[in-house]
């Protein structure tokens, strides 16, 4: 199931979503070994940041809610990790966030010198007061941050979008025009809130949090469908994927690669290999290839 993506060869179309386990080279390597074609680091910010107090991640059964709060050592405090990653033998996305265009630019420029295979900018995270999401819902700021980052990096640029954008197809197109090489969608949905009625308090310390997992899959499919119609660059589709059938659904909506986050909880760290196997079984039973099903849901009536 090897696949070409922005000039690199991946062993399969599975991607580890940012913020899931991606805290060190060792664990990223394990995820790759467990059958994941492309792994993403936890989003890297301009300053050291502890993130929010716990509770930060709650499983709701049909999905999760989280407000981890973008913890990061800060891009200048990751020397061990960069050194470890230099010697990697797997393809890597470095995810970057900032509080302003110049912060995005500064972090991305620095990270680019560390030679990840791709840089992803997270302009879509809802779990911090000032970081990220504001850029991804606004056409103009999306354009600014993408073109600013594109100028200073030497690896392909992926832009990660939020489903909160009123017209995610339009935002994607603007990012493409600004120089994005690929779109990643979606980040978490909402935000949502869960109140514990016994203590009468929001369960998350940050009160609100982004939704992920099975319950957001219909939103992910719709967003990917809209983006596929709007752009020509490839899409990393994610949101609620748990099975090979889910992955195929996102590919039919228009995804080239398929990310997994929350399902690591539901099916274990080897979910990547399992999903690849299920996709292979389905494709074989239907005598189809991934290329043949990509965007298939866009074809018109019988």
């Amino acid at each position: 199931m090897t696949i070409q993506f922005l000039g690199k060869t991946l062993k399969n179309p599975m991607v580890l979503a940012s913020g899931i386990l991606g805290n060190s080279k060792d664990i990223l390597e394990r995820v790759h070994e467990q059958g994941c074609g492309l792994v993403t680091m936890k989003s890297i910010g301009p300053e050291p940041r502890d993130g929010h107090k716990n509770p930060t991640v709650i499983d709701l059964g049909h999905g999760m809610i989280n407000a981890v709060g973008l913890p990061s050592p800060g891009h200048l405090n990751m020397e061990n990790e960069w050194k470890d990653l230099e010697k990697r033998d797997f393809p890597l996305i470095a995810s970057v966030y900032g509080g302003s265009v110049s912060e995005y630019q500064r972090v991305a420029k620095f990270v680019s010198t560390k030679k990840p295979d791709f840089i992803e900018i997270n302009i879509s995270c809802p779990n911090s007061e000032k970081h990220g999401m504001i850029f991804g819902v606004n056409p103009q700021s999306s354009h600014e941050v993408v073109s600013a980052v594109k100028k200073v990096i030497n690896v392909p640029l992926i832009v990660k979008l939020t489903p909160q954008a009123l017209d995610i197809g339009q935002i994607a197109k603007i990012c493409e025009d600004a120089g994005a090489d690929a779109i990643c969608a979606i980040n978490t949905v909402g935000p949502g809130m869960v109140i514990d009625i016994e203590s009468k308090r929001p369960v998350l310390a940050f009160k609100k949090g982004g939704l992920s997992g099975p319950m957001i899959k219909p939103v992910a499919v719709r967003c990917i469908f809209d983006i596929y119609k709007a752009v020509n660059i490839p899409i990393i589709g994610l949101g609620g994927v748990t099975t090979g059938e889910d992955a195929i659904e996102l590919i039919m909506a228009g995804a080239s690669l398929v990310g997994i986050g929350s399902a690591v909880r539901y099916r274990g760290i080897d979910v990547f290999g399992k999903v690849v196997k299920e996709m292979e079984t389905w494709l074989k039973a239907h005598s189809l290839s991934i290329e043949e099903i990509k965007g298939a849901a866009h074809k018109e009536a019988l």
Partner: protein
Amino acid sequence: MMNPITDQKPIMLRVIEKKIESPEFATLFFEYAIPFKPGQFVMVWIPGIDEKPYTISYHSKNQFAITIEAKGLFSKKAITLDKGDLVGIRGPFGNGFEIQSKKHVGVVAGGCGMAPLATLAEQLDKNTTFIHGARTKDYILYPDRFDIDRQFCTDDGSFGHKGFVTDILEKEIASGKLFDMIYACGPEIMMYTVFKICEKHQIPCQISLERYMRCGFGVCGACVCGKQIVCKDGPVFNSAVLRDMKDFNTKALLKSGKDVDLSLYFSWRCK
């Protein structure tokens, strides 16, 4: 009626009993039939404060308890909780100890590391070799709890021998005692020493690690240690895994995700 979809939000429970174990330790009891294996832990939420992982230190069909050592902000708040106070419980999480019955085993506990070993010890033979140490007498947890005889030691000699649990373990092995398994929990440096001793004598061991945690179920990555996810693959690890575990006794991640030397991690945690 429960929501038809299973959710795994914190289950809100009231403290039904509180036991002051020593000036440094308190145990909180809850009425709830929690599924359980010795060594597993729960995430404990004090609304408005924070949520942290605690071992299940007592367990029966309809009750369980956690034992807290007063250290920092959260645990100092936790030991002030009393009968009727509400906390949220998620879990149990983690793998727990693998119990090999009908063999001669050793248990090595250091300080609060006694907590996860307690319910394990209750399932072991009376002839188990049980070594239990702490800084001082006040940090000896459950001095009267078990059927099994213990060899006590403290750093200052205030209770039992003066010295380290690992010294006693070495002596036991040197005296010709044969172990099929050693279970250990305590400060990481202590567990590392136990592991090294076991390796030298080719005794399999299981130890229980501690890292900063968020989700508790293997998603967020806060607790990774080498290639292992402590909350999910652990907290109990056996010799085979420990041999390859790069960060064992060397590194841990701070809340920010920064990887630091274990000494730095513990100086932060003991601030």
